[in-house]
């Protein structure tokens, strides 16, 4: 039987995978994917808590987050494309023009 607790545990794992991916992956595309995982982990949490309480607020919040995530990835890819045009790379290790 699936309970809100199971969903919360899954969401915590997803959040961990996302943060780990952002911090360790060198390819920015995969970093963007990890960022999406974090947002979706939060969404799962919202829905799970909405189910556990029960209240509608969490589901409403999740809908808003889905919209914002779409906007965020659009901006992220736009920035990434300008970078790729100038540098021909999406490897984060190669970007160190500025130091200190």
């Amino acid at each position, binding site marked *: 039987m699936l309970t809100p607790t199971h969903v919360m545990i899954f969401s915590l794992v997803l959040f961990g995978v996302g943060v780990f991916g952002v911090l360790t992956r060198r390819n920015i595309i995969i970093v963007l994917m990890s960022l999406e995982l974090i947002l979706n982990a939060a969404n799962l949490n919202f829905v799970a808590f909405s189910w556990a309480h029960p209240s*509608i*607020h969490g589901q409403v*919040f999740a809908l808003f*987050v889905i919209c914002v995530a779409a906007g965020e990835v659009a901006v992220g890819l736009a920035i990434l494309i300008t970078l790729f045009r100038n540098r021909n790379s999406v490897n984060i290790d190669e970007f160190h023009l*500025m130091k*200190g």
Partner: protein
Amino acid sequence: MAGFDPAVFIENLAWMKPELLLAGFGLLLLLASATVPVAIRQVGGWLTLAVLAVAAFLVTAQLSAGSGGTVASTGAFPDIAGNPAFVVDGFAVVFKLIFLLGAAFTVLMSMKYPDTDGEDSAEFLALVVFSVFGMMFLASGTGLITIYIGLETMALAGYLLVGFRVQEKRANEGAVKYFVLGALASGILLYGISLVYGATGSINLYGIAASLAGDDSGAAGFLGLGVVLMLVGIGFKVAAVPFHMWAPDAYEGATTPATSFLATAAKAGAFAMLLRVFVTAFGDRGADWAPLMILLAAASMTVGNIAALRQDNVKRMLAFSSVGHAGYVLMGLIAVGLSGGDAAIRARGLLSVALYLFIYTFATAGAFALVALLRKNGQPGEMLDDFNGLVKRHPVASVCMLLFLLSLAGIPCTAGFIGKWWLFGAAIKVNLVWLAVVAVLNSVVSLYYYARVMVAIFIRDGDGESKIQVPLPLSAAIGAAGLFTLVIGVYPQPFIRLARYAVLMMGA
């Protein structure tokens, strides 16, 4: 659960006049950038300034619309549980004025070099306007959905402003770093919000406060972790150590007007969110979160100022200095957290944060205006050596720069001294004398790297002795910033009166 009443909705909408004005104008700018000929577009900057001024007027009018100007008026958009999700109170009004001020300086600076980077283009102005629009929702929002959407609106426009020079490799790089860490911060903040929702069953600051006042057993673990994650997320946005890594690269990569915007308006926006969330929702638990803030504040001051010592790039130096200033400002919030219900200390904390952000906006925007001034023929003038012998090339601007740097260091007779006096005093009021001592020592350290710029301007000889022609918008920015820095330093009372409105937070 209240039903939807169109009449009430329109009545409530009247409280959003400044925001609606900015949103409409931003859309118009985007439309103009695609259709209006280049020659006419040159007036875009002045038009934007006019709209920002009208928005400031509308914001100020909200202050006196209520009860004769003594108590801030409040408008409230109820969410589905009946709690207000958008309020107009003294706190929101003061912070909105700070955002508009920072944006106005940015627009003035952006009108300097139309031919090189296209910063005068309607897209650039539209992004500034949209970002300010988002910040206004941060200052007024009391529902976490409203706050989150406001934050993302501010941040997404900010990422694009940093990466605006698409041909410039440093801009690309700064924008990617800013985006990845900024989005990570938003994600962590959001996860924290979801845990707080789980613990309290509400996504409204007032609902959360009411739930916390009811009982303090229950899901304490969720709540603690959620609050910490929210603090981490907002810590990124205010660039507090250890979450400041993006700031130097984003500041250096961005065009100077955009850098100034990040350092003034965007920082004030993040502080507005920090204050609103922690004072309204978790105000009763101040003693629990204040120790974390003390760590952030002490680390930000020390690391920021020490890292700034060895920077030869003035923009990067100012970036680290702004990290240090975030540490100073946090002291005001700590005083609020530790006030323990003492209204006088709470008021002093809120007042000093608002006052300091005003003062810091003038000095920082002025300093960045000088950096923008030194740029010519597409060559950035951001290195320390570019300031050599500036006093012979433009004496008035040099004296203004001296004022800005002294104000940032907190020397008496400049505005910065007044700001630090109030902030450090707030820390002493809650018996954090050691933190105030750390802050004073850090101010001494900061004087060293500010003095490096002064030495370059007034003592070193430059190679080119030609006078600098200052365009009108830029001289207006430098002049206004210099004037206010001096006036607040010797006659601060009107500004203290204005900042006192920030104490009026609805329902807290």
